[in-house]
């Protein structure tokens, strides 16, 4: 009997065939669910989908399974729902704030009416400044230990700031060391720098410009790493440049010292007799120096001929030194003023006893039991509170710094932009391209400004507790103002060099500033006795005595003993030594780990290259083998049937059906053949290409 090809078999299926059919159905279902991720043209996907659906529906009935297409569609919908909203935005990290308004702790004591008054009038006696706080040990029914809490909050803020800065640095260092930042620099720039979301012509222009700049920077780095120059001349010039910079710094330091001395003289003579300039000379001079010296440093650095990133780091370092020098000169001058106030205090104390004696008319003795005469608080002569004076100076400094920044912004950026834009119509040369042009937004300069602002806050926060809160307000205003200024008057920087890859350069600066800022405060706490009649520590011989007091009165006796043993220098010094050794050990091990990491990465790269080469070789061999094999096997049969083989003619994307006699292609390998959807072009050595299925 003739065997008709294509005749349907009767519905009796053996268990193995049933199993195979079930597998086939499952595979088809899987194909349907992964269809959207396949790199096929839509026409092919739709066709495959239709065929697979038909297959599944046809044979699922035969297998008698309960699962219907509806349930499957439900599962797909669930998957889609789980995959997330297509327009969801990515979460952004928020920067942790290193400062807190520690004045919030004193909410019970705020008197809002007082705060709204002038800063240096009534506010002098308000909660803004140290002088307001009472030295009473425990307040209210909760027995709130005010002086203790003032002290601990002050110390605690500094400790917390240290922790935050160091933790951020560690995190940055981790991210930096883990990534493969340099291995695909140019490739990534080429293939992933254009943002496909851009639809606005201006944005596109900016993006083109920034991509070009980024490439130029990378090219420059590459070229610099292959350059070498006349070493001696360069060295001489660099030494000369550093000498000039040192002269500059010394000059500015002396200028500030001189000005501070003069202002002290004016203060002695009485402030009213001098002009506005003379009264605010110190702050003005400091601000002006801060504006013009960096420009000078920039000009001097042209002598040095450094790599742009290194030059930027030197520049920032010098500005840093300038600000630090100025700040410390300011503090030394402040110390002089503090000493002056303390002398005044001594004199006042003397006068106080005389005045008290005069109140009692000299008739009563010290241990008298007569009722005290009530005197209005405002009539009692107040001692010159040096701590409040310090707080005031800092607030004044910050306010003038803020004002300088805003005025520079308005004049240097806004006015300049207005002039360039409108004078350009009637000027001989092109103002926009030529001399003044629009000002650049200097990222590193602004970051440095923020860091110094923070340093000043850290310095003054102990004596003016509301300073952090004021600063938060100032930062908000600055942000909006500068946001507007950048959009309206600035052009992007020409050089897109960053001072450091991971911002750790700036964090390191912040850490140094934190350390240097808290030194003066700590010095004053430890050395100078507090004022006798103002502040939470009044009457004590040293501010940290409050700790001693608390230990004695609030804690059980044995605690005090333990504490005194623990703070014995004989115990503390070895402990410190141990910590230093531990740090040294940890540093050396981390260095060796980094080294080992780099070596492993290099090894990995070479190994993967070798493996790729070997794989390609094996595949070439397999194809040539397959080719010869199937040629031998297939050719007689095709003569017989004249079947659907089109294997010898290389048509595009024709999948050889599994029932054909050709050997199945290895699955799951990355076959270097034509990509789906492309016109198939035969490789020179291979005549046929098997299934190129991709998962």
């Amino acid at each position, binding site marked *: 009997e003739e065997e008709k090809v294509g005749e349907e078999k009767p519905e009796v299926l053996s268990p193995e065939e049933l199993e195979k059919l079930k597998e086939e159905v499952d595979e088809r279902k899987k194909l349907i669910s992964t269809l959207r991720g396949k790199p096929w043209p839509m026409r092919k996907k739709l066709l495959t989908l239709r065929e697979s659906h038909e297959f599944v529906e046809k044979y699922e009935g035969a297998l008698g399974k309960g699962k219907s297409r509806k349930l499957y569609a439900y599962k797909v919908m669930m998957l889609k729902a789980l995959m997330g909203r297509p327009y969801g935005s990515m979460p952004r990290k928020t920067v942790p704030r290193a400062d807190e308004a520690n004045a919030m702790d004193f909410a019970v004591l705020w008197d809002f009416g007082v705060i709204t008054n002038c800063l240096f009038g009534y506010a002098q006696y308000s909660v803004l400044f140290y002088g307001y706080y009472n030295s009473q040990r425990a307040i209210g029914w909760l027995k709130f230990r005010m002086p203790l809490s003032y002290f601990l909050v002050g110390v605690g803020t500094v400790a917390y700031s240290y922790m935050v800065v160091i933790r951020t640095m560690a995190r940055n260092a981790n991210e930096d060391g883990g990534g493969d930042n340099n291995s695909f620099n140019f490739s990534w720039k080429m293939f992933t720098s254009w943002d496909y979301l851009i639809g606005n012509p201006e944005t596109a222009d900016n993006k083109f410009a920034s991509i070009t700049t980024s490439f130029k920077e990378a090219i420059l780095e590459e070229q610099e790493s292959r350059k070498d120059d006349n070493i001696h001349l360069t060295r001489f010039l660099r030494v000369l440049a550093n000498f000039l910079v040192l002269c500059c710094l010394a000059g500015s330091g002396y200028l500030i010292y001189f000005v501070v001395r003069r202002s002290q003289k004016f203060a002695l003579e009485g402030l009213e007799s001098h002009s506005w300039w003379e009264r605010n000379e110190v702050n003005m001079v400091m601000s002006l120096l801060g504006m013009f010296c960096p420009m000078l440093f920039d000009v001097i650095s042209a002598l040095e001929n450094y790599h742009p990133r290194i030059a930027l780091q030197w520049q920032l370092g010098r500005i840093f030194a300038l600000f630090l020098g100025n700040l410390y000169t300011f503090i030394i001058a402040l110390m002089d003023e503090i000493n002056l106030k303390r002398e005044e205090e001594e004199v006042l104390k003397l006068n106080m006893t005389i005045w008290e004696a005069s109140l009692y008319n000299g008739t009563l003795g010290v241990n008298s039991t007569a009722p005290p005469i009530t005197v209005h608080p405002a009539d009692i002569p107040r001692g010159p509170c040096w701590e409040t004076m310090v707080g005031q100076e800092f607030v004044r400094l910050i306010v003038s710094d803020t004002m300088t920044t805003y005025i520079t912004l308005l004049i240097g950026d806004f006015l300049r932009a207005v002039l360039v834009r409108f004078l350009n119509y009637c000027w001989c040369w092109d103002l926009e391209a030529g001399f003044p042009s629009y000002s650049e937004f200097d990222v590193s300069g602004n970051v440095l400004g923020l860091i110094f602002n923070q340093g000043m806050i850290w310095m003054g926060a102990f004596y003016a507790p509301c300073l952090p809160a004021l600063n938060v307000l100032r930062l908000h205003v600055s942000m909006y103002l500068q946001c507007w200024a950048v959009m309206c008057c600035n052009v992007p920087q020409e050089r897109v060099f960053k001072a450091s890859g991971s911002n750790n350069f700036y964090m390191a600066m912040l850490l140094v500033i934190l350390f240097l800022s808290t030194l003066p405060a700590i010095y004053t706490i430890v050395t100078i006795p507090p004022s006798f009649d103002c502040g939470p520590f009044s009457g004590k011989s040293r501010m940290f005595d409050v700790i001693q007091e608390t230990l004695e009165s609030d804690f059980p006796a044995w605690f005090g003993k333990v504490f005194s043993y623990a703070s014995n220098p004989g115990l503390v010094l070895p402990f410190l030594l141990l910590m230093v050794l531990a740090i040294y050990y940890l540093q050396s091990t981390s260095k060796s780990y980094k080294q080992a990491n780099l070596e492993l990465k290099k090894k990995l790269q070479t190994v993967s290259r070798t493996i790729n080469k070997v794989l390609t070789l094996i595949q070439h061999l397999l194809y040539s083998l397959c080719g010869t094999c199937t040629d031998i096997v297939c050719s007689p049969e095709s003569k017989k049937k004249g079947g659907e083989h089109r294997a010898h003619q290389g048509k595009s994307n024709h999948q050889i059906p599994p029932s054909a006699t050709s050997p199945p292609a290895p699955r799951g390998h990355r076959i*270097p053949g034509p990509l789906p959807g492309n016109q198939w072009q035969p490789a020179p050595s291979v005549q046929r290409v098997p299934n190129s299925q991709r998962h």
Partner: protein
Amino acid sequence: MGNKQTIFTDEQLDAYQDCTFFTRKEILRLHGRYHELAPHLVPMDYTNEPDVTIPLALIVSMPELNENPFRNRIVESFSEDGAGNLSFNDFVDMFSVLSETAPRELKAIYAFKIYDFNVDNFLCKEDLEKTLNKLTREELSPEEVTLVCEKAIEEADLDGDSKLSFADFENMITRAPDFLSTFHIRI
């Protein structure tokens, strides 16, 4: 749902949903966008699957593609005839691959196609030079262009044939931190 739209049959919409990363609503909206590109060419009724294509010039005038330096290559890579004439199927496919939910592997395959200007399945030096010139609007000097292309091939080429095969490209692009966020068009 109660909405009776007559553009597609339900089976068609379900099929599109299975084959792309879009929902029914998005597909209908895409059809609206496709239609407004050439209202006289594109019928509102797609139930009988009309064989209509829109030429390249009209597609690249869309605001989403207008500023993209690779717009021509993108449209050509998704067209069946390779010349940039997109049927609605190709149109939907294109935006599906470029959508936010498309996986990295799929995007890498199409990115390779896009940057392969001479369509030979390899990113050779000429392809890279063309890519770079489009990216920088030819602001770099020829020496700089050569340097960048040589460095890029040096970095990514694993099998040592001085051009990038798909394997080389994929190996490099899957490590790129910015790839998914930049290779994304929202429509």
